[in-house]
């Protein structure tokens, strides 16, 4: 880890030139994999993430089935080369927790009663990581679900907000996350209900109120990108 820079925000500009309420550059494409029932690739700044959906499909063994609704499974995984120091392949405690909260963020948008005794599997692979991977994964997963034709109440959009150099900012970089005062990933449905909320660090109640308003804006912008990716799927498009 390099040393902390003196200032992360100077004259309203962040180290990468963004304003405090600005997202990093985004790239998103649906339908990038052939075998998966639905898929989506997303870049957000240095993050490169791919999501795939399989299902609904039958559950084995049978005693794991649920009689009245589909079971959602979600696996968040980081590629070994996605981070500075090689990560051992496979799940660790961090990815187990992220898989859980990501599933809980996505699940309310799925109409689960349509497919009893079945499962929908969501796989998110982080190819390159640069802070905010779980939010990128949730965005890509939501589009992949739509791409797979899963009946949904709407898309889920996600972004992180936080506190850096005393200011509330949108979409933290790795550096801002490491040296900032708070990090808060959020996800919400199209109609503004919160499905993911985590926070580490310190915020006053007033700062929290500001932060959550900023997150709303961020998620709205993300939602437009998600919509466009689904529209673009029917016109072709390129990824990476």
């Amino acid at each position: 880890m390099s040393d902390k820079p003196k200032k992360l925000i100077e004259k309203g500009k962040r180290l990468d030139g963004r304003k405090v309420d600005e997202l990093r550059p985004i790239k998103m494409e649906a339908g990038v994999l052939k075998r998966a029932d639905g898929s989506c690739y997303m870049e957000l700044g240095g993050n490169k993430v791919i999501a795939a959906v399989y299902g609904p499909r039958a559950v084995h063994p049978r005693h794991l089935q649920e009689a009245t609704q589909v079971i959602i499974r979600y696996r968040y995984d980081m590629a070994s080369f996605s981070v500075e120091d090689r990560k051992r392949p496979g799940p660790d405690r961090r990815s187990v927790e992220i898989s859980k909260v990501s599933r809980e963020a996505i699940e309310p948008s799925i109409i689960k009663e349509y497919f009893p005794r079945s499962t929908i599997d969501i796989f998110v692979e982080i190819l390159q990581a640069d802070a905010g991977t779980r939010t990128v994964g949730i965005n890509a997963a939501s589009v992949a679900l739509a791409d797979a034709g899963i009946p949904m109440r709407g898309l889920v959009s996600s972004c992180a907000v936080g506190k850096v150099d005393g200011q509330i900012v949108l979409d933290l970089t790795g550096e801002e996350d490491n040296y900032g005062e708070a990090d808060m990933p959020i996800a919400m449905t199209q109609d503004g209900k919160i499905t993911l909320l985590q926070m580490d660090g310190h915020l006053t109640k007033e700062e929290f109120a500001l932060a959550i308003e900023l997150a709303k804006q961020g998620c709205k912008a993300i939602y437009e990108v998600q919509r466009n990716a689904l529209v673009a799927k029917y016109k072709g498009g390129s990824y990476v």
Partner: protein
Amino acid sequence: MSDDIIAEIRRDYIYNLAKKGERVDGRAFDEYRQIEVETRLIDRAEGSAKVKIGNTQVLVGIKIQPGEPFPDTPDQGAIITNVELAPLASPSFEPGPPDESATELARVVDRGVRESGAIDLAKLCIEKGENIWMVFIDVYVLDHDGNLMDASALGAIAALLNAELPNERYELGKDAPLPIDDLPVAVTAAEINGEIMLDPSLDEELIASTQLTVITSKDGSLAGMQKSGVGMLTFDQIHHIIDIASKKAKEIREKYLETS
């Protein structure tokens, strides 16, 4: 099958009570069950605490031993938090590696201590880049009747408060208390049928659509949050939870942590 029917009846019953502003055990929505904190029960541990919230019971032991620092924090001690959902605590706990709930629980307790700055990690450095104190927080859940999050977090900070650095054992001078800077307290709320209730019992947890844990610092600021469980919260609900949670955290801190 009959299990499902009983579950449905219980759900209806609690839902109907909630509409009338009532809870199964007669508590107010912002009322905790009885809390008991006992400390220094385990002589082998450097610190320990047993917390009961109603029938929920957790035992937290702190072990402290020297170790190598992480490469990216050569001058800081380390905190390692682990939660064991011991199979004696619930018919639904199985022996084996921690499942996702135990992992989440451990990570939220861990961040509640670490990210809140409760412990001054710089003071846990013995020799920069070579030797630091590793503080193991091990939570054993003994009886599970809901709200393990608050019980575990309270047990962790209570145990840390009476923990001693075992300097003598390693010929580093006299034993000394852990450098505690803050007393973060976790308060969990459940959403049931549109209503918000603190300290959900197991019956309430099973039917809650989602829960939100809010960790508050001594100075009243928010030191951590975790939504847990499928389900949604409105902005208003979140602001309301933060409001009552920070009040309740202050009460708990004064009553159980600042007296010891």
